[in-house]
Every structure is written in structure tokens, then in C-alpha cells.
């Protein structure tokens, strides 16, 4: 063609495009751009492992170097997805092992990873650099030993919040003596002790180590040994933060901390005792991220620490901080962007701390950059929510969890519709919202009307009727993920908005009122969706069609029904009626 650029030039131009959105747009321009782009795409993100098969991905993007794959739906975090549901990574590893020998990065979230998969990874990819397993399960320390032993170029090993069967702490010793390329290690989820001397030697021979997140079993007295060998650390997760109160332990610790001039992030702090907190004071001014969500220390000690961190951007903390602590935070940490307050006694009948809606209001007043909130509390009012919305129109993520379901505004006893309505109306860039408290269909009308940028919505124990669901599905233009539990939403709204589901990644509904008949209909109408009925009471056919299903998981896919379903999952499709005769 007379006026097209040579391929190499186009490829070079495309190499500056890193976002998936941009690359997807480019690939739609014309056939030749599609071809050029697909040969040079290096990073793939698969938001739902069943939306596409590994074969399709590899066929289209043969030169992929980094994959990120997500498996189970988010509510699996709260035990709402029965064990054995799926999200096995092995088929992906097997396919890539054969076709992508140059693969460097694998990041997985909520997937089942076996030792077999880990061993295959360690032996298949000679230049393997990054392994991140976030909230995964199914593997043991033996699998980690394979990774350590065989991945000569490994830079990152991050096991964040995964469930690992701890067979032995010796896996760490499998890193060879000449292995020096470690940059990031996160073993905070491991239950038992790793060999400390192996850890110490590993740290000592890793000059590029930037992130080290230890597990609880690493004693505080030994922490200085590691810090002294890694003063260049940027992120540190301590082990248990308590020890017999001794001045030499304290001074060793304080000295070791003060040598770490680059520290920006701190986490860990299991079993923290206040006496050892001041040892960190030297590094506080540089800290931007602080995770104290395992530290059961009282408000005054928390305040003393937090108010020293003037450059704090992210704080995760238990509700021991209380309203007064949050007020102090609001006064000191003007750069705060993200706040998460977790409950110290989630199942207690009575409040054990003085943390109310006021704490959040204070932070919303005092921290102009606050954009991301996760807040567990026991009472809320519309007035507080309205104030928060007015103070912080720049909120992007707002997740409120009032511990008791269906609790009304504690001042007026009204539903919290108005308050959440104010949030969606004022916070025009809101992308993620979690609701709680007493809510009627009205709140969903507000959400459908105003939350135009909302991508993820979590609903529990809310609403009066199908109208609520209809408002959301018909109004929220940017909605990608919708998860609902224990709401009176049923067939009508779902079927009326069936086409909407093809524009979303997924819909989860559990303990709602969606009938088996409606699920079948949905599956038949929309062949590009997998409509999964997840029901532990046996085949849905053994009950009347009008009977509500326990759980419904609907997601778009280009790969059709999956082949690895356990006995309690049924996929509704055109053949559904034939399958159950």
C-alpha cells in the first residue's frame, strides 16, 4: 500500500501504548493494525479466567511476557463461594508452558494454584521474574521450594493473603547461594517459621531488595539483623511486634530503623506492644503507607505514631483508633488519600470502642485528598453521609460497612437512602461503592440516576423489590461488576435487563429471589453469557421452576460453558432443558 507506514514503525509507535484500553482501540482500526498490535502486545489482563480460554489468548498474543488473571468472584473472600467451585490455574500454565517460553510475569488473584502448577512455572520459563499470588490457595511450601530452586532470575515473590499449607520452613533455603536478584519478597501470610539464617543470608546477598514483608513468626529481636543488611528497603512488613521489654532490644531496633532512610511503607505489627512503637519514630516522616490493621493497640498510642507520619497517604488501622484518633489523623495527615478502618470485634453484640460516624466525618473534613474509604462501624446517619459527600466530592471508592444489617439512621430512624444518594450525586467520579444499613428501592433510583462512572457495586440486605435492581441495571452506564446478597431482587428486573449483562464482567446474586426458570431463560436468551446456578441442595431440576436458586453467577465469555464444573454448579444454556430429562 502506497501510504502505510512500514510495520516496524507502527510497532515502535504501539510500544508506547501501555494501557489495555488503548491497545484494544488500536487493534480495531483495521486488519493490519490488529495484526501488528497482537504480535507486540506484552501484557495481558484477564479479569475473569473463564471469560476466555488460554488457547485463545495465546493464539492471539503469542509474544506475551506478562499475564494477570483473576479467578473467583469477590464474594469468595467472605465464604459465599463453596469450595471446589473452580478457578484452577493449571490449564493456563500448561498452555503457556508449551507456547510462551519467554514468559516473565504471572500475577493471579483468587485462583487455585497447585504445587504442580508452581513446579511447571519454575521449569518452563527460563527468564521468569515475577510471581504474585493474591488470595490464592491450593499450594504448599513444596511448591515454593520449586520456585526458589529453579527461577534463577526471579525478582518478585509475593504471596499476599494466600492460604499456603506450611509443610516446612526450609523452602527458603532452596534459593541458590549465587542467587542475588531478589527485589521483592512477601511471605506475610505464612503461618510457621522460615529458617531465619536462610532468610538472613538471602537478604544479605540481595542488594536490590526493596520490599520485604515478613511473617508473624519472625521475632522482633531479630528484625534489626535483617534491617542492618537491607538499609535500602522501601517497604517493610515486620513480624510480631512484641518482645520482652529490654533496653538493648529497643536500642538495636531504633538504630536499625534509623539506618533505613528510604522506608516509605510499613506493615505487619502483629501483637504490637506500645513500648516498641517509638523505635520507629525516626522513619515516620518518610512514611506514605502504614498498615496497622493487625495492631491491637489503643488510641493514644496509635495517635502518637500516626501523627508523626506527616506524609501519610494510606492508612489501614483497627477501630481502636476511635473517633478522637481519626480527628487527630485529620489534623496531621493532610496528604491522606486512602483510609481503611477494620473492626476489632466484628461479632460482638455491643460496641467495644468509641468509633462512630463522626470519625469518618472528621477525616472527610480534614483530608482534602481523601479518595478511597473502607469503613466498618456500628452507626451511621444521613446527615453524616451528606456531610461526607459535600466535603469530599473527589471520592473514588466508598465502602461503608455498618456491622448490623438493615440498621437505620440512628438519629432519625429513617433509611439511609438520602445519605448514599448524596454520595453518588456529589462524587461524580465514584468508581466503587459498597452499601449497608437500612436501604429501600429509593437509594437504587439515586444510584441509577447519578452514578454514571460507577464500575463496581456491592449490595447486601437492601431494597424492597425488583425495581431496585432495575434502576441499577438500567442506569449505571459504566457498571462492570455487580454483587448482591440477601436482597429481594428477582426475575423481572434481571430478564428485562438481560442485554446489560453482556456489557459487564460479571453479576453475582446469592440468597435473592431469582428463580430457576428465569436462570434457564437467561441462559437460553444470551448464549454469550455463562449463567451458572450454584446450589448445594442438589440439581435445580429436582425443585419447582419457581424455586429461587441459592446463588447465581453470570459472566460474559467467548469460550462457552466451562468444562471443570463441580457437582453443585450448573450452566444454563440452550441445551439446559434437554440436559435434565
Amino acid at each position: 500500500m502506497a501510504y502505510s507506514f512500514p510495520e516496524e514503525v507502527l510497532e515502535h509507535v504501539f510500544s508506547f501504548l501501555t494501557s489495555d484500553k488503548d491497545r484494544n482501540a488500536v487493534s480495531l482500526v483495521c486488519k493490519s493494525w490488529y495484526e501488528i498490535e497482537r504480535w507486540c502486545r506484552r501484557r495481558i489482563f484477564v479479569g475473569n479466567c473463564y471469560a476466555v480460554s488460554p488457547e485463545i489468548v495465546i493464539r492471539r498474543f503469542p509474544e506475551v511476557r506478562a499475564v494477570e488473571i483473576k479467578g473467583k468472584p469477590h464474594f469468595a473472600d467472605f465464604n459465599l463461594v463453596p469450595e471446589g467451585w473452580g478457578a484452577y490455574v493449571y490449564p493456563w500454565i500448561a498452555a503457556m508452558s508449551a507456547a510462551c517460553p519467554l514468559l516473565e510475569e504471572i500475577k493471579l488473584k483468587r485462583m487455585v494454584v497447585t504445587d504442580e502448577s508452581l513446579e511447571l512455572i519454575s521449569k518452563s520459563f527460563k527468564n521468569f521474574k515475577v510471581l504474585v499470588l493474591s488470595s490464592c490457595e491450593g499450594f504448599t511450601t513444596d511448591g515454593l521450594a520449586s520456585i526458589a530452586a529453579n527461577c534463577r532470575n526471579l525478582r518478585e515473590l509475593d504471596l499476599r493473603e494466600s492460604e499456603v499449607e506450611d509443610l516446612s520452613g526450609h523452602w527458603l533455603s532452596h534459593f541458590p547461594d549465587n542467587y542475588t536478584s531478589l527485589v521483592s519478597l512477601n511471605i506475610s501470610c505464612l503461618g510457621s517459621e522460615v529458617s531465619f539464617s536462610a532468610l538472613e543470608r538471602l537478604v544479605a546477598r540481595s542488594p536490590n531488595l526493596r520490599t520485604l514483608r515478613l511473617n508473624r513468626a519472625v521475632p522482633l529481636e531479630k528484625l534489626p539483623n535483617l534491617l542492618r543488611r537491607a538499609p535500602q528497603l522501601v517497604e517493610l512488613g515486620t513480624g510480631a511486634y512484641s518482645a520482652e521489654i529490654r533496653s538493648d532490644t529497643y536500642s538495636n531496633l531504633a538504630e536499625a530503623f534509623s539506618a533505613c532512610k528510604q522506608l516509605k511503607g510499613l506493615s505487619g505489627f502483629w501483637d504490637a506492644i506500645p513500648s516498641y512503637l517509638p523505635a520507629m519514630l525516626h522513619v515516620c516522616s518518610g512514611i506514605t503507607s502504614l498498615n496497622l490493621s493487625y495492631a491491637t493497640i489503643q488510641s493514644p498510642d496509635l495517635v502518637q505514631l500516626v501523627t508523626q507520619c506527616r506524609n501519610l497517604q494510606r492508612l489501614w488501622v483497627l477501630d481502636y483508633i476511635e473517633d478522637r484518633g481519626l480527628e487527630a489523623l485529620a489534623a496531621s495527615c493532610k496528604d491522606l488519600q486512602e483510609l481503611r478502618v477494620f473492626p476489632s470485634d466484628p461479632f460482638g453484640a455491643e460496641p467495644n470502642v468509641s468509633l462512630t460516624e463522626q470519625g469518618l466525618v472528621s477525616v472527610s473534613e480534614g483530608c482534602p485528598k481523601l479518595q478511597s474509604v473502607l469503613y466498618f462501624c456500628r452507626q451511621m446517619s444521613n446527615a453524616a453521609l451528606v456531610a461526607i459527600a459535600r466535603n469530599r466530592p473527589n471520592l473514588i471508592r466508598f465502602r461503608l460497612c455498618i456491622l448490623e444489617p438493615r440498621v437505620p439512621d440512628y438519629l432519625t430512624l429513617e433509611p439511609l437512602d438520602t445519605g448514599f444518594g448524596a454520595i453518588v450525586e456529589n462524587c461524580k467520579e465514584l468508581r466503587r461503592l459498597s452499601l449497608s444499613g437500612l436501604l429501600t428501592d429509593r437509594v437504587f433510583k439515586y444510584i441509577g440516576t447519578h452514578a454514571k462512572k460507577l464500575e463496581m457495586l456491592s449490595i447486601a440486605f437492601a431494597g424492597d423489590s425488583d425495581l431496585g435492581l432495575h434502576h441499577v441495571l438500567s442506569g449505571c452506564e459504566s457498571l462492570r461488576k455487580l454483587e448482591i446478597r440477601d436482597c429481594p431482587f428477582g426475575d423481572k428486573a434481571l430478564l428485562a435487563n438481560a442485554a446489560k449483562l453482556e456489557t459487564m464482567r460479571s453479576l453475582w446474586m446469592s440468597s435473592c429471589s431469582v428463580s430457576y426458570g428465569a436462570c434457564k431463560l437467561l441462559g437460553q436468551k444470551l448464549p454469550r453469557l455463562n449463567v451458572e446456578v450454584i446450589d448445594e441442595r442438589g440439581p435445580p431440576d429436582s425443585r419447582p421452576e419457581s424455586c429461587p436458586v441459592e446463588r447465581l453467577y453470570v459472566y460474559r465469555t467467548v469460550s462457552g460453558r466451562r468444562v471443570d464444573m463441580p457437582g453443585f454448579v450448573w450452566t444454563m444454556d440452550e441445551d439446559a432443558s434437554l440436559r435434565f430429562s
Partner: protein
Amino acid sequence: MEFVNLKATELRLGLPGRDETEEQSSSCAKNNKRSSSEMESSSEHQESGAPPPKAQVVGWPPVRSYRKNVLQQQKKPESDGSGMFVKVSMDGAPYLRKIDLKCYKNYFDLLKALENMFKCTIGVYSEREGYNGSEYAPTYEDKDGDWMLVGDVPWDMFITSCKRLRIMKGSEAKGLGCL
């Protein structure tokens, strides 16, 4: 599209705390080992006299298992750290020992441990006579700096106020027991 409120005709599974909870928890308990540990945690929280926790709904509040487990294993927050490792001296012994009061559940365990550690007999406490008749009597220094007889106050109060222990010779302790 017009929607009528279908509440009257809708199929509901009821509010949590009633049938729905049992249905959910029994159907989940079979296949999901994590939900049974959640049920265990509710019984651990039950203390005599305190109001029992509400009937638990699976997965609510939305706190991840590893967080719940960590909170259960954590010790209660200490405000000033007193009442844990304390020095123990015994009259006539050449050097002191240190013990962690939190390792013991009650006075009986503590005294047995002290008897073991120092190879002495402390005997049995009585409110009226203290450790009268024993060779040794355990005393402690409290937050106010006063020396008190071990056993007078409830155990929980004792461990938060005890700063150090001294095992006195019985003859010297007689004065304390006869008030």
C-alpha cells in the same frame, strides 16, 4: 416500563436470624470448611454474663478469614504493658528470676510454677490467714508501690497491677496475714 411492587407475591427467604440463617449455614457447612470455623469463633466469643453474640450470618460482616483469625489470636490491648514479665525474688536466693504472668490462668497455676521454680512450698491461701503456716508467702509490689499479699484480689486485677513478685519467708509475712 412500569413496575408494581411485587413484595406481596415475591419469594423471600426471610430475614437473617431466622430460617434463612439456618438454611444458609447448614447448606454451607457441608462443603465449606471455612464457615464451620466461623461458627466456632462465635462460641469462643461467648463469655458468661456477657450478652451472647447475634446469630451469625455466613460472610457477614464482610471480614476476611485471615483477619478474623488474627484478631482471635491476638492478646487484648495493653495500655502500659504492666502485668506481664515480672521479676521474682526469693528471700535467700542468690539471683532473681523472671516470669510472664500471662502464661498462667489463675493463682493456683502461678503458685505451683513458683514452687517449682524455687523449690519451696508456698501452701494454700486463705482470706483470713494468708499463707499462715507455710514456709514462704508470695507478695507483690503493685502499681502504687505498695507490697501486697498475693491472692487478695481477683486474678485479672492482679496481673494488671503486679509489677514484681517477692517470695517472703513465712515468718516475715505473718504480719500481712493477720489483719
